[in-house]
């Protein structure tokens, strides 16, 4: 038996939440280990989960409460567990759930000057946000590995690809070390070299400089 026998799960309605938390606390679950939220977008609900621990009897319960996404409001538990202030502050920022009576609601925790919908909600479009806010950085001069992938076993193409690179003494030397055929490609002149480049680099030119 290796599964954790110390954990139970239960759900409660919003109206019975405060009473159930008090009951559990009286029953020995005195620690609030975690306060977290799952967004069930398709069902139009948030599930707020209270992970409570009973250190004396070594057991844990996950108490879940479902609240509608349109009116996400709960009352605070920070009066009982002081560290809940941080959890509630973060959840308010990341999911937009309001904890009535909690200090620091609306005070930025991680984000600064955030104008969009709360970012941990499932309907927040991360791709759209990054496209709008971050610009493409011009690429650096690099060796495009696509030139070599699948060609290593074919020695001639490999050395051709090397020798076709722009005139760089070190790279020429490498190509010469690999095979004498590199010299042929050079002998064919610049046109020949350009052809090899085109063949060996199907993904397009490197973005140099």
């Amino acid at each position: 038996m290796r599964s954790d026998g110390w954990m139970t799960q239960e759900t409660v309605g919003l109206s019975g939440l405060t009473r159930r938390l008090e009951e559990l606390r009286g029953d020995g679950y005195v620690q609030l280990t975690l306060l977290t939220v799952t967004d069930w977008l398709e069902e139009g609900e948030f599930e707020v989960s209270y992970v409570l621990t009973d250190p004396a009897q070594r057991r844990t319960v996950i108490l879940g409460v479902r609240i509608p996404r349109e009116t996400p409001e709960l009352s605070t538990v920070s009066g009982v567990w002081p560290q809940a202030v941080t959890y509630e502050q973060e959840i308010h920022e990341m999911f937009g759930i309001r904890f009535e009576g909690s200090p620091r609601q609306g005070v930025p925790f991680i984000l600064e000057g955030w104008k969009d919908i709360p970012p941990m909600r499932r309907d927040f479009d991360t791709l759209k946000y990054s496209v709008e806010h971050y610009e493409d950085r011009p690429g650096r001069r690099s060796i495009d590995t696509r030139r070599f992938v699948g060609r290593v076993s074919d020695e001639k193409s490999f050395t051709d690809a090397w020798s076709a690179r722009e005139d760089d003494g070190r790279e020429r030397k490498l190509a010469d070390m690999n095979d004498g055929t590199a010299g042929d490609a050079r002998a064919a002149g610049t046109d020949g070299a350009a052809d090899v480049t085109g063949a060996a680099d199907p993904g397009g030119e490197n973005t140099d400089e």
Partner: protein
Amino acid sequence: MSNDYDVTKETHLWFGPQHPGVTGNMSVELWLKGDTIQRGITHVGYLHRGFEKLMERRTFIQSFPIVCRICVPEPDTNEYLLAKGLEQLAGIYDDIPEKAQWIRTLTLEMSRLAATLMVLGGQVGSMGLGPVPQWMMTLRDYVLDSFEELSGHRIYHMYIVYGGVRRDLPEGFEGRLEKTLQTIEERLPWIDRLMFENDVFRKRAIGIGYVPPEWVDEMSLSGPIVRAMGIPRDVRKDYPYEVYPELDFDVITEEGSDMFARARVRRREIAQSINLIRQMLASMPKEGPFCLKLPSLMHWRIPKGQTYVRAEASRGEFGYFVVTDGSDKVRRVNVRGPSYVHGVSLLERMLPGTNISDLSSLMVSLQTCPPEIER
């Protein structure tokens, strides 16, 4: 006439985000009178990379390179907990091969050892004693060498995977790890002399940074902070996992609940980790599979469910709240790092009355790790 030394004048000061108190970036906004802190607010967000959100957009196997980055000194706990949470939800956790359980526990204990070495060095380093942190980082590096041999990586190992571990122990690994342990053991008496018998350290640590025991349940504290109050709480004993029940060890406690007691707990836990690693190397099964055969991880779907899993990191209780919805991605992962409580709520509660020169060492003593606060 009023000047900056006038104790009736309140000074507003930003401490950080770069300072010796933490591994990472985190700032504290302070209000001082003289050099005594009146109150303070922590500010995080400098290291927010949205790990939890990223995981919701990636398949299960793609989440591994993400979770290990949540904690630099101790990534293995994150890997283990993500694997365990999803294995439990997929219903395969009970089938993990025995050898994999042993290797997982070995890895977890090695990472605890490496992280404890680092923080103990940082503890005196924040007080200006140079040699101990240098030694400690060297010793940690030897442990990282073993990790490199084991997994191919020094910092982020991505070694514990679904179904077991990524590969078997290399040939002769036990002997080389034993040699590393001996090197660490040889250096420990030096550290004792230079750190625990040092008047500077004793004067700046004994009686400083006191945490009252009644805050433990109120704020859900864990790890060396609690054990330094004489309360024997340790996830490895209280909620045994992997092969810890088969190992012989006691929960280390100290009295005093100050910085010195916490450093003592950590110093003794280094010896304990070495002992546990030796026990594991001696009794580990040599044969057998190290990973469960799983269906293609590219198309792995896990039924709907939620779980909370926990393990003892060097800083305290690490927890993962994992929710799946039947798809090939997690619905929600919430990482509960010990620093979330220790580094924010507890620190803010301890600040009033603290001398500003003790702030860095206090933050090291709470072992604050910002990436796990902001994830």
